[in-house]
């Protein structure tokens, strides 16, 4: 679809493409042990969790420019006058954001976690949690970005709106990974994560479209 193609190109340019998202993640993974000191035991314990938080933070980095440029340069007006309702446009934007940054990060997350010392057996669940988490982050982040449009103080206002919303998936995902590593039941938190991510993907497009219309009028 033409919109998806464009949004992918824009998300690519915005975040600098998956390569750069991965670079950010890699650098952060490098920084963590540097600032913690090299003791492997200390590291291994926090590895999976830390990778998970870094992922959430990495996916926040370019969120604030998901709607703002289109709002500022009038592209949002054009998008409102197209064949699809704004809800669908917003969903496609988030999907593109996820494909460009979330999906590659989901592949990188287990590698980063293992590099930090997590058990290799946890790799699939880390990747799955990261993929679902990335979906939630992209859609909830998009909602925050759209809400902040009207206010014109991007960046951290978005963070403040979005972080409370991101906390539940972070809890669920962290719990799933942690329980898995410790042999506890992990399916409940994991399915909560999945439910949360899918609910976010289903519901936030309405919020985003409303927020965009509100900002433009």
């Amino acid at each position, binding site marked *: 679809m*033409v*919109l998806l*193609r*464009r949004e992918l*190109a*824009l998300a690519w*340019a915005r975040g600098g493409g998956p390569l750069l998202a991965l670079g950010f993640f890699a650098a952060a993974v490098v920084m963590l042990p540097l600032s913690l000191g090299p003791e492997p035991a200390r590291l291994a314990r926090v590895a999976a969790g830390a990778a998970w938080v870094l992922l959430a933070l990495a996916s926040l980095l370019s969120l604030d420019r998901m709607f703002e*440029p*289109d709002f*500022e*340069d*009038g*592209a*949002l*007006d*054009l*998008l*409102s*006058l*197209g*064949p699809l309702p704004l809800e669908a446009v917003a969903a496609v934007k988030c999907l593109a954001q996820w494909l460009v940054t979330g999906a590659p990060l989901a592949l990188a997350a287990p590698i980063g976690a293992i590099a930090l010392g997590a058990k290799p057996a946890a790799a699939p669940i880390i990747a799955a949690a990261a993929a679902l988490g990335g979906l939630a982050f992209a859609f909830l982040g998009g909602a925050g970005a759209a809400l902040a449009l009207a206010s014109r103080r991007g960046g951290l206002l978005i963070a403040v709106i979005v972080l409370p919303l991101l906390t539940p998936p972070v809890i669920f995902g962290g719990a799933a990974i942690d329980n898995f590593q410790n042999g506890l039941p992990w399916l409940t938190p994991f399915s909560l994560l999945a439910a949360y991510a899918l609910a976010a993907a289903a519901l936030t497009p309405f919020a985003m479209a409303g927020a965009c219309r509100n900002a*433009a*009028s």
Partner: protein
Amino acid sequence: MDDLAVQRGERILFSKLSARVVAGEAVALTGANGAGKTTLLRVVAGLTAPLAGTVRFEGVRGDLPNDDARREACHLVGHQDGLKGARAAGAELEFQVLWTGGDRASAEHAAARMGLTRLLNLPVRVLSAGQRRRLALARLIASPRALWLLDEPLSPLDAESRRLFGQIMGEHLARGGLILAAVHDPLPIPARQIRVGA
């Protein structure tokens, strides 16, 4: 398709403005700076909600709900052209045309008509003001919609392009199109004039 616009009381800007634009007609909106021309265009396009009053689209497709009719009928070209500076001019034009219902061939044809063919590989950011406006206007030709909402369309164009675009507007009207243009200088086509504001 013809078009009836009734619009009243948008903030304190203007009130009880009513007008009806019919097929083949061009309307020049004039008025002082800040009178509300741009706002009126956005209201007609459905981007800004009016304080009171409605804009009705009555056309051959009278069966469509008003909002869908509007979405299919309007082209809006303003100062904010929605073109991304970093992307190639050709890619941006193609997206805008496809998005508003045209196809690739018509986009190319429109670019040629606007004298842009040579520039399509350049990033939009390096285009001059007039070239950029021509790029924004090209989608009017490429994806046919009935109502053109234009905000000071001619100002950055050179004399040659103005003549050309006048001709293009004429053709649009001859096909039964409608034009609503906010201007400070007279349009190069015969147009009914509506003064906005006090």
